[in-house]
């Protein structure tokens, strides 16, 4: 009972009364006190007891546990409040000290269950810790109550969002911990695999498994990046899809464009750039009518038709126009500028055209040196 203090008139910030129960007696542990037949009021910050002449209150922060004892034949229903140790700097109260750390509230005229509900609500809210600023004036408590409630909601939704993000992060961490063990084990095996010379069935399985976990091991990439059945079938699909567009583009299309077209057509369950490249690697002119070509600058394209016929076409265009630059070629042949540049560079490497670098740009002429 020594945690109870004489009631103060001031209202704490954001304090609200939640309800009250009449005819309550206070017990110090098992002993009855003189605080009998009083009105017990539950607020968000404290428990107030008053019988008209005396008023005492108990800050809710001292309450660590609440238990219910039902009514018996001669005894009324009670709530037992377990309290945390008293802090020394407290305001004066009716009892300077107590041997026990619990008090009982005896509900002579009933209402203990309602009281329990009210008290639990206030305890869970812990509003005395939050310190939300609220309207102080009692008369406008109605309006203040509305504003406060809105602020409460905002606050609780912010806390909820925080909590959910934190729990999401915790979930990620937990998942990653599980993955870590698996990954270290797999890594060790992958390292061993690079030593193993024979290709057994398990190694094949393991390598594709490693790739599916996402371990980018150079070993898996080389042998199983491009060779798998998955990439082969993807390649065939790509080839089917690209027949028409490739013809429209003058027989050449950059792999980036292939990636875009295919994923746009697919809509969901898109494929990664790596898978596109690996699928393109499986294309052959014999089976698919197109193949992947890599230029010295690193640009990757899908080329349909024969290289020679493209070069013949190019040469014919150059001769017909006298000379071309990349821009002119791209518009004449309806191919992207980048590809026009690359084709001219490739033709130059094969000795079909010669370049002339001027201030106005680079122009290409038929290579007359070879016919000399």
């Amino acid at each position, binding site marked *: 009972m020594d945690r109870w203090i004489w009631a103060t008139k001031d209202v704490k910030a954001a304090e609200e009364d939640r309800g009250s129960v009449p005819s309550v007696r206070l017990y110090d542990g098992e002993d009855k006190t003189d605080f009998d037949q009083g009105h017990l009021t539950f607020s968000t910050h404290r428990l107030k007891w008053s019988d008209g002449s005396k008023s005492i209150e108990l800050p809710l922060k001292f309450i660590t546990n609440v238990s219910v004892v039902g009514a018996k034949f001669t005894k009324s229903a009670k709530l037992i409040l377990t309290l945390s140790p008293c802090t020394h700097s407290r305001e004066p109260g009716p009892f300077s000290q107590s041997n026990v750390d619990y008090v009982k509230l005896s509900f002579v005229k009933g209402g203990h269950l309602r009281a329990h509900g009210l008290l639990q609500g206030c305890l869970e809210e812990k509003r005395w810790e939050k310190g939300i600023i609220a309207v102080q004036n009692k008369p406008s408590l109605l309006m203040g109550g509305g504003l406060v409630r809105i602020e409460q909601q905002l606050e609780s939704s912010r806390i909820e969002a925080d909590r959910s993000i934190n729990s999401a992060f915790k979930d990620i961490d937990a998942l*990653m911990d599980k993955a870590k063990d698996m990954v270290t084990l797999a890594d060790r095996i992958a390292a061993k695999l690079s030593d193993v010379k024979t290709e057994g069935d398990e190694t094949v399985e*393991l390598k594709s498994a490693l790739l*599916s*976990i996402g371990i980018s091991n150079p070993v898996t990439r080389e042998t199983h990046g491009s060779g798998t059945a*998955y990439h082969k079938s993807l390649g065939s699909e790509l080839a089917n899809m690209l027949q028409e567009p490739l013809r429209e583009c003058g027989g050449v299309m950059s792999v980036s*464009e292939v990636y875009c077209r295919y994923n746009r057509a697919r809509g969901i*369950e898109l*494929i*990664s750039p790596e898978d596109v490249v690996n699928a393109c690697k499986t294309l052959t002119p014999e089976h698919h009518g197109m193949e992947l070509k890599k230029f010295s600058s690193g640009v990757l394209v899908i080329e349909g038709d024969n290289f020679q016929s493209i070069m013949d076409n190019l040469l014919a265009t150059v001769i017909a126009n006298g000379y071309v630059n990349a821009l002119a070629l791209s518009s004449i042949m309806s191919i992207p500028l980048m590809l026009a540049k690359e084709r001219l560079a490739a033709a130059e490497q094969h000795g079909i055209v010669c370049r002339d670098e001027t201030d106005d740009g680079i122009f290409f002429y038929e290579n007359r040196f070879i016919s000399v």
Partner: protein
Amino acid sequence: MRRNVGIGAVNKKRLAREKLAQKGTEIAEIQVQQVSQQMEVFKQSLEEFATKYRTEIKKNPEFRARFQVMCAKIGVDPLASSKGFWAQLLGVGDFYYELGVQIVEVCLATRPTNGGIITMSDLCSLLGRSSGKTRKDIQPDDIIRAIGKLSVLGDGFKVVKVGKDTLIQSVPGELSMDHTTALEVAGRNSGRLQVDSLEKLGWTSLRVESSLDTLLDQGMLWVDEVDKSYWVPAFFHA
């Protein structure tokens, strides 16, 4: 009588080696089994995780970033294969691959103007505009990761830091230190490249000319014929 020499010893050693090799393969087999088992278990946890967070990945950039960082920490690349666990169960792949497609499209569309370099901020805002409401929360981090994957397509997609700006390059070829310095100078001046700013850095006129020529060739630098001033359109603010 010397020990450990002679046919007997050789045979013994050979037998021992064979036994060890056998043991080795046995152990390897067990390990393979272990990994497969662990993978099954992990798959289940991932499935649980996925049911909770599949939409979160698409909606929440903070969550995405954290997820990627954690994957990198344990040495896993969730975007490596579209048939992998991550892509299939979590749908991480779809988000980044779709972003990749949009980045390629935006870069291709703006290439005639900026020659194949675009500022990160321009790219972000153009991406936000292109596909409506779900894309408002694209972060530079997402773009950088998507571009990391696009680089394999061979079109030279890379992220280039020029001073305090981040540029995305979508044409092949390396930008040398001189080129990036010239771009940075232009960037600080709202896109206008003052030749004397380069000369103030101590560059010879030959050096200036050579850098400007390359940038002009690429299309990243434009010259105003009237007053012979140089401009980098990538830094023009929309």
